[in-house]
């Protein structure tokens, strides 16, 4: 395959999947050697960088085609996630510690956590499943969540911190 054609195929994959893909994944999808993918990908990234448009290919934990940060306002406007700060915080705790038991979440976030969970389930951002022993619920974030959000910075350290703190008050 020509380099130009491969570049174009990679672009199509990134546009269609709308999620971060590793070189290996791209190679699998396109049935092309990872080395070739990497080469073409780098060229594609440079193409985008030199284009001065609204889109860019970010390479944080895989390659993803996204709108540049400067147009975040447009993204927010078109795909608003209307969550009250408290609910957002509950969502953050879930994302950091998933899968998390509902009872533990309540320990961390207080009794309002139940309401928050309900709202988040309704919005399709988390899913809630009966525990193996059937006594509590396990809560996880969904595919939709990962389309809307990513965890930033040293999330692991923060998760550890939560462990110690045992509680995330609303303000």
């Amino acid at each position, binding site marked *: 395959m020509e380099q130009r054609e491969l570049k174009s195929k990679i672009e199509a994959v990134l546009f269609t999947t709308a999620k971060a893909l590793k070189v290996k994944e791209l190679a699998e999808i396109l049935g092309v050697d990872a080395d070739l993918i990497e080469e073409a990908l780098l060229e594609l990234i440079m193409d985008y960088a030199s284009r001065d448009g609204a889109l860019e290919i970010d390479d944080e934990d895989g390659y993803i085609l996204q709108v540049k940060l400067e147009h975040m306002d447009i993204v927010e406007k078109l795909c608003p996630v209307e969550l009250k700060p408290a609910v957002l915080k509950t969502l953050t705790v879930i994302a950091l510690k998933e899968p998390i038991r509902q009872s533990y979440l309540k320990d961390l976030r207080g009794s309002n956590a139940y309401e928050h969970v309900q709202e988040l389930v309704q919005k399709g951002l988390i899913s809630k499943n009966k525990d193996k022993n059937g006594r509590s619920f396990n809560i996880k974030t969904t595919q939709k969540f990962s*389309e809307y959000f*990513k965890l930033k910075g040293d999330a692991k350290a923060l998760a550890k911190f939560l462990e110690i703190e045992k509680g995330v008050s609303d303000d």
Partner: protein
Amino acid sequence: MTEAFDYSLTNTNTAEVNGASVNSATQELDGIEILVSMAKTGKVNPWNIDIVDITDKYLTQLFQMKSQNLRLTGRTLLFAAILLKLKSNILENIEMVEFEPNEEQFDEFDISDDFNTEENYTYNQNNVISIDEVLQRRTSIRLNRNRVVTLKDLIRQLEFYEMIDKKQSLKNAHERAKRRVRSYANLSSEDIINLAHDEYIEDGVQRLKENLEQIFKRENRVELTELTLLGMDKISAYIALLFLSAESDYELVQDEFYAELYVTRGLQ
């Protein structure tokens, strides 16, 4: 995790930080304890440290604490500074391995003598990433990605299949042409000219016709290879047979692909 920056709320020293009524224990609060107590009383959000705000609050606190304890003030500002540094590091996404307070910073507060007895502070940015900053909105989100497809999509899809189909039939034709070229490749140019020559074909047809009439008096069918015994090469015999089958009732039969070709008499 470093103990030095422990926000732990287990600290029993619950000072009223806004109030003017500061008990004697408060006098001994240092930077960390002030932070903790401010968090406890809800003055600051431990999950969302606003450095500017916190610094302001420290200064207010400082003002309210009538005893102008310079050591306390220095430490309070130190922690504000550290917070600021940590936060900017987080924002910059720079790994900060160590942060050791420089003594010079305290010179103006005249506490350097005091400070040396303190433990060395080693902070890691991990301690103070704010929970409100952990979740970041993605800008890769695409609405309608999993929408029910529209008919236009369907038409596009069909067009795509059509295109693939065209490409395939084109490719097949190309393959066939290539195969033809290959089978002729063994022939000399003279052979090819002869092959194409009408008279040559006519001659072959005539010879074959006479011979086949003789053969079919005895046999029901004859192998094409056998006909080459008459002094014709296989291709010439084949071409002659094609002409013959078009104008008479001789037929070419093959039981399996690539197997022997037989000439038979068609049903009358």
